[in-house]
């Protein structure tokens, strides 16, 4: 009966200290979303590396660019980039959803509604995409 464990505290009864399960992130959908959001940064990192490789190929000349394009068309790179795109979109959306909680904007005496802050982020996203589109395609 008298098992002395590290939970024993002098002058107190033995306190029970349940351990957090290794799989705590599977206990709630919200926890799983959090882990996916945090994990998605790996894919954001990969996109950055991929862009740098593209830039490097473009700078080296037409031949290197052709090689890069052929490599990008291989099934595994294609598959990786499709998964990456999904995670990057998930990352962006969850990041935008969180933004109004962190950014409190005031205009004079009134607080800009959190929804407006969220819409501002989406508007910024659309604007930047449009500029990139215009620069690349000129349409």
């Amino acid at each position, binding site marked *: 009966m008298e098992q002395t464990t590290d939970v024993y505290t002098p002058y107190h009864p*033995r306190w*029970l*200290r349940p351990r*957090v399960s290794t799989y705590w992130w599977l206990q*709630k959908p919200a926890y799983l979303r959090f882990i996916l959001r945090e994990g998605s940064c790996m894919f954001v990192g990969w996109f950055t590396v991929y862009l740098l490789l593209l830039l490097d190929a473009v700078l080296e000349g037409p031949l290197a660019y052709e090689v890069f394009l052929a490599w990008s068309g291989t099934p595994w790179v294609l598959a990786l980039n499709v998964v990456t795109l999904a995670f990057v979109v998930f990352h962006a959306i969850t990041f935008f959803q969180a933004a109004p909680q962190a950014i409190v904007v005031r205009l004079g005496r009134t607080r800009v509604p959190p929804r407006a802050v969220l819409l501002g982020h989406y508007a910024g996203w659309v604007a930047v995409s449009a500029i990139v589109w215009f620069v690349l395609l000129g349409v």
Partner: protein
Amino acid sequence: MSNRIRLQIARYRPEQESEATFDEYEVPYTKEMAVLDGLNFVKDRLDGTLAYRWSCRMGICGSCGMDVNGEPKLTCATFLTDYAPGPVRIAPLRNFPVIRDLIVDIGDFMRKLVKIKPWIVRAAEKPLAEGEYRQTPEELEEYKQFSMCINCMLCYAACPIYGLDPKFIGPAVIALAQRYNLDNRDEGSAERMSVLSEHDGIWGCTFVGECTTVCPKHVDPAGAIQRYKLTAAVESMKSFFAPRGA
């Protein structure tokens, strides 16, 4: 005529057992009965040895926080009818040591709370003759949301970061620090910053956001922490580019 519902209640009797077990009780309920009323029925009529904390029964005192079907809840504001046909599984709040049955020890929180000086800090008090410290409704609105915290610990129970690393100062302490930082009568934000900008302060938070979801008083601790991170980052940039005395 009332319906009946089964309550599965966590029991931990340190003098008898080294692990928690669940005892089952059946209680009658009506639509206005909270989970806490169910516990009181058990205590009064079925098993007087059940131990749990409660006081005001109206979401003010913050004593009756428990884990109800896996979610941290104020049991006085959680209704049995919402869990019909049951069973309802009631356990102590997660992430805290259990003293007995549904009672947890929150000493860790109390020790952390004092560190951030949860009171109005003034460099010098003005003489009484000069009157009170006046405040406009807008100035009150700045911090009012964070002043609604009732220290119920639901946010700590929902925070996986606190569960994994108990050194993390935690959501409510940071929200309460913001309550005073954003109060225009207060002059203690620099002192609080030194505690909150430590590794186990705001930077421990990875923005899971569950603290805000479970908060029964809509305090939004996750928002408070992210706002404070922004403040801390701006302050550190300022001190980098324009060090004091330069």
